[in-house]
């Protein structure tokens, strides 16, 4: 348990010094997927786990779901060790990266089946509503093996909606979805979070993380190399200004042009040169359209942290 600004924060998901390795190849060479991996997700967080391919994001999620038992270290979700099929899944929803669903079932049968596994608490109406919410009403009788990738993903989202989960695990959730569905899905997640659900998601799409997450961890080679509030990672770069002004033939050498069109120039300049540039624009009789401190995007932070790691 931790306190932030006097508010009691409860750790919902916790990993402490977790190591997982896989045996690969004929000689069963050991490959470390997680190496001294530690992470904490607080109640009510929308937590994003980032990292390059092979960083161990999915393995970490499998550990939280009890699908992999770590070689060493501790995993706890709701203060319990997750075990496959245990009662703690009553409050958990999981959307897998690959559509490993019961392909021989129809859309409605599949969502009904997954809902029924939660016990008697899920009504048929709730299933119907979930199918409608993801826009699959007219395909409810279509077998999953005949569905497109995006439709299968929607089935996965629908089955996450049926049991009012307290924790939602999402592995690359927007893979194969069209932009409209992505937006709807984002709204669903925000609504679930407002209703008290903690959301944990793996994604390569930094803009997606940026839009919904409040906390982020960056992984590389099986380790968490940064873990912070999104706002802290995505702060302002006080050393650099972004300026946009009318096009000029010659520019001072400190102006780092980013975009140049026939009419305008968008450039980065060091903060100490700002006054000098404003004078130059005035003297040249040009117009200034934008002048602001450079904002560090999640993408910048991500690459900076990874670069620092190397």
């Amino acid at each position, binding site marked *: 348990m931790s306190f932030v600004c006097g508010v009691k924060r409860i750790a919902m998901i916790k990993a402490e010094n977790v190591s997982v390795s896989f045996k690969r190849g004929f000689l069963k060479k050991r490959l470390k997927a997680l190496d001294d991996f530690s992470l904490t997700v607080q109640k009510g967080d929308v937590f994003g786990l980032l990292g390059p391919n092979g960083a161990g994001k999915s393995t970490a999620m*499998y550990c939280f779901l009890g699908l992999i038992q770590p070689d060493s270290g501790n995993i706890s979700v709701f203060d319990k060790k997750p075990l496959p099929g245990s009662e703690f899944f009553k409050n958990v929803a999981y959307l897998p990266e690959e559509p490993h669903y019961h392909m021989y079932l129809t859309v409605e049968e599949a969502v009904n089946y997954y809902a*029924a596994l939660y016990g008697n608490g899920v009504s048929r109406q709730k299933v119907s509503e979930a199918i409608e919410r993801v826009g699959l009403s007219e395909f409810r009788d279509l077998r999953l093996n005949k569905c497109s990738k995006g439709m299968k993903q929607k089935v996965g989202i629908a089955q996450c909606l049926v049991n009012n989960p307290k924790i939602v695990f999402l592995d690359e959730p927007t893979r194969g979805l069209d932009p409209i569905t992505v937006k709807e899905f984002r709204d669903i997640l925000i609504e679930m979070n407002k209703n008290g659900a903690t959301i944990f998601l793996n994604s390569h799409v930094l803009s997606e993380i940026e839009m919904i997450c409040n906390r982020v961890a960056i992984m590389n080679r099986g380790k968490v190399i940064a873990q912070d509030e999104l706002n802290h990672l995505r702060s302002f770069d006080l050393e650099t200004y972004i300026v946009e002004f009318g096009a000029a033939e010659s520019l001072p050498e400190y102006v780092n042009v980013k975009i140049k069109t026939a009419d305008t120039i968008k450039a980065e300049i060091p903060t100490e040169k700002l006054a000098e540039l404003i004078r130059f624009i005035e003297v040249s009789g040009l117009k200034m359209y934008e002048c602001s401190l450079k904002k560090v995007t999640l993408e910048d932070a991500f690459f900076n942290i990874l670069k620092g790691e190397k």
Partner: protein
Amino acid sequence: MYSQLVTNIKVNLKFYKRDRLLFIASIFIICILGLSVIPALFFLTKTKHLQIITTIFSQLSKFITLITAALGLLFISHHIRNRITKMVFTKPCSPETWLLSSFLSASLVSLALYAGIFSICSILFLVWKIPFQWGILYITVNDFLQALIALSYITLLAVLFHPVIAVLFIFIFHDGTFYYLKLLLTGGIKVSGESSLTSMLKFAKWIVDIIYMLIPNGEPFSEKMSVVYSSLRISTESLQYLFFAFAYTLFVTVFFYLLSLYALKKKRHI
């Protein structure tokens, strides 16, 4: 657990119904068996009607045993290899329930098929005006128990191996192979006398004996029950052996269920 068991069984039955491989395999086996049974219906004289009934029963029974094993093998392999179990075990549905549902659903289909051939044979008794022989019920029950033994063994193999390897494994590692090996080694020990080879043969026989004990007997007490199979007449003694066969089947299914469960829990469902 009960409601989850029922839910899983319903879904498993849908898998059997919709699996094309299973459907094609069933049609193929039926055709093969049909080719061997149908001529008998035309060429045998009326006095051999009883023989026709037992032929039909034994052929169809072989088919059901094969289908029961195939149901178990295909279902488990399909779900584990396609990582579908991931969607089940991330719900409050334990591996115990899922595995039990898989076993029960295959058993239910097998039971229904055995009930079907029992009905066919009973109808033939009526049509051909032969006095009903209760032995047909006896062998139906016994063959069903044998199908359950095959199912429990193949369930374990399906959890452990690729389905092709599981089938190859069952062809080699069945009680018949090791019974034959036991006979060979016993003969070898007698012939070798006191030579240095004897101790090696004795050791080999010891290993074979252990494996023979571990591998389930596909046809328990078959020698004792052979009279019922040939005459369709039941005695008190034969009923006793049916009870023994039931107890053995119960033991084997529970033992292999627990082994399969252990193997399933050790697997990484990712």
